């Protein structure tokens, strides 16, 4: 009987019911859409912040820092094997380690920086997309300004310190010292400069994610480094590091704010609609009381309807949120689109949560419905 009454009442007041279902639908769809695309979003954020560049530079401890900042690299070198020591050290919270060797040269009447790059090393052992320019043996990658000044073309053969190379790629203008840099593979640069087995910098990316709020990440890193490379020092580009951290926290805070905000707004929305429904049905409640129905039955009418609202809202919200993520997520997260997949278990959890949420939102108006004096309504006609 109670289900029959609920069904019939819904059929009469379709708009109120539709708006209530829409409130739950909206909350669930937003949550599902955020949650389903969360992994893609997280990875995309990592990728975007990674593209901001390395934030750690590990250089020989005896580096003349005046010259370092003037030249952009250390004037002294350290053994290349230093970078290998990171492989066996488990406590590092940074990634994308790259050994580099830099040297200023005068080439074709132009001051350039020749940079040798080794392959990246991941202390974690995981495969990651490289941050460095991948240079094939026998090739170079030319900075924008070098190419412009010397009229270099991709595919052109050049001679550098009596060795022939092919220009594999010309970089876009970066607005940094990279514009006058010529990248080659580290072993070839070491051979050209007669500095076999030597490097003057290890570059790395630190996520700061293992750093507590009250810890200075740089001090922590220096402590870590001291254990592995006592003859090296670490410099952190705080602009990039902080930007990465802020981006990560911003994203977390955004989700932490938007989901509860939507949930509370939708709860108020449902509560208002149930309240309006209670007000519209004052006479009906009075008559039901006069016919002998008790408060539990009246509560059942409203809470049963709220459960139905939750069930339908959750089902359609799940569908909409999932379809939105699967269809439009790849447009937003182009690189990490493969991470966006339907999460079927969320249908169960979102249904349970939405039914509970809908019932909780309807509790106060239902309480008003069962405590209203039926005589007040019936007497006042």
């Amino acid at each position, binding site marked *: 009987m109670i289900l029959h*009454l609920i069904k019939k*009442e819904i059929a009469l007041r379709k708009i109120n019911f539709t708006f209530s279902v829409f409130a739950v639908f909206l909350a669930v769809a937003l949550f599902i859409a955020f949650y389903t695309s969360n992994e893609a979003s997280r990875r995309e954020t990592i990728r975007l912040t990674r593209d901001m560049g390395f934030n750690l530079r590990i250089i020989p401890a005896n580096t003349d820092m005046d010259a370092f900042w003037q030249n952009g690299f250390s004037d002294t070198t350290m053994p290349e094997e230093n970078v290998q020591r990171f492989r066996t050290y488990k406590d590092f919270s940074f990634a994308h380690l790259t050994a580099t060797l830099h040297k200023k040269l005068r080439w074709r009447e132009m001051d350039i920086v020749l940079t040798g790059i080794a392959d990246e090393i991941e202390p974690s052992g995981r495969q990651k997309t490289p941050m460095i320019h991948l240079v094939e043996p026998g090739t170079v990658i030319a900075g924008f300004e070098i190419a412009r000044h010397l009229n270099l073309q991709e595919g052109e053969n050049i001679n550098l310190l009596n060795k022939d190379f092919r220009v594999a790629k010309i970089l876009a203008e970066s607005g940094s010292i990279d514009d006058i840099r010529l990248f080659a593979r580290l072993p070839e640069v070491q051979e050209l400069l007669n500095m076999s087995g030597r490097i003057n910098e290890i570059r790395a990316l630190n996520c700061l994610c293992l750093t507590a709020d009250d810890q200075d990440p740089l001090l922590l890193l220096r402590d870590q480094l001291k254990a592995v490379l006592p003859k090296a020092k670490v410099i952190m580009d705080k602009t990039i590091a902080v930007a990465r951290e802020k981006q990560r926290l911003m994203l977390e805070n955004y989700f932490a704010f938007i989901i509860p905000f939507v949930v509370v707004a939708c709860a108020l929305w449902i509560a208002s609609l149930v309240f309006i429904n209670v007000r519209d049905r004052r006479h009906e409640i009075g*008559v039901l*009381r*006069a*016919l*002998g*129905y008790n408060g539990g039955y009246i509560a059942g009418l409203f809470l049963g309807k709220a459960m139905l609202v939750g069930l339908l809202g959750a089902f359609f919200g799940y569908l909409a949120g999932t379809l939105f993520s699967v269809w439009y997520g790849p447009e937003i997260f182009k690189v990490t689109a493969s991470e966006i997949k339907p999460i079927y278990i969320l249908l169960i959890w979102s249904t349970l949560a939405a039914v509970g949420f809908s019932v909780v939102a309807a509790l106060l108006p239902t309480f008003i419905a069962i405590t209203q004096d039926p005589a007040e309504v*019936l007497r006042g006609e």
Partner: protein
Amino acid sequence: MVTLERLDKFYLTRQPVVKALHNISLKVSEGEFLVVRGPSGSGKSTLLLAIGGMLRPSAGKVLVGGQDIYAMPARERARFRAKNIGFIFQMFHLLPYLNIMENILLAAGASTVNFGKQKAADLIKQFGLSGRAMHKPSELSVGERQRTAIGRALVNNPKIILADEPTGNLDPDNASEVLDYLKNFQRINGTVILVSHGHMADEYADRVLQLRDGHIVDS
């Protein structure tokens, strides 16, 4: 059947206390047709709701079938009301989303003694609503709506009918018809207490009481 003992009902408002009923003592016998007449605001509806267990009096007792209904817990009082008392209202108060059959069966649903669809169908036939059983209240005339409301009040075979201005919205023909149905209920030993501000029901009554400002002033 119904006994009121020194019944008072006060309403606490921001204004001075409103005395809706004052020191009402009354006995209504089983099978009696009582009309309580009085102007608007005289306390008629309050009296009816108090007798029906819907409005707890400020003082005094309401005995129905010898039982003090306000001494019962609310849940038991609701069951007692569903089984023994039928209400009829001036505004009918049919549920707009239920058809006629369902509106009548609604009262049966609250009672532990469920006479079911057959009884409802009999009442529909008796009240000339056979062709309207599946219609919604909005599709009926006012007379048909009130006959449906009477059917709802009778479906549980109550001992008492409490009727609050049941003819107030009806034309004379429909009003007579409604009063005839109530008279028929009385003939099978049912008790009717009807409140009205007019005189139309007087000729059907065994007794007429006059209520003014919460007092019985004439009988």
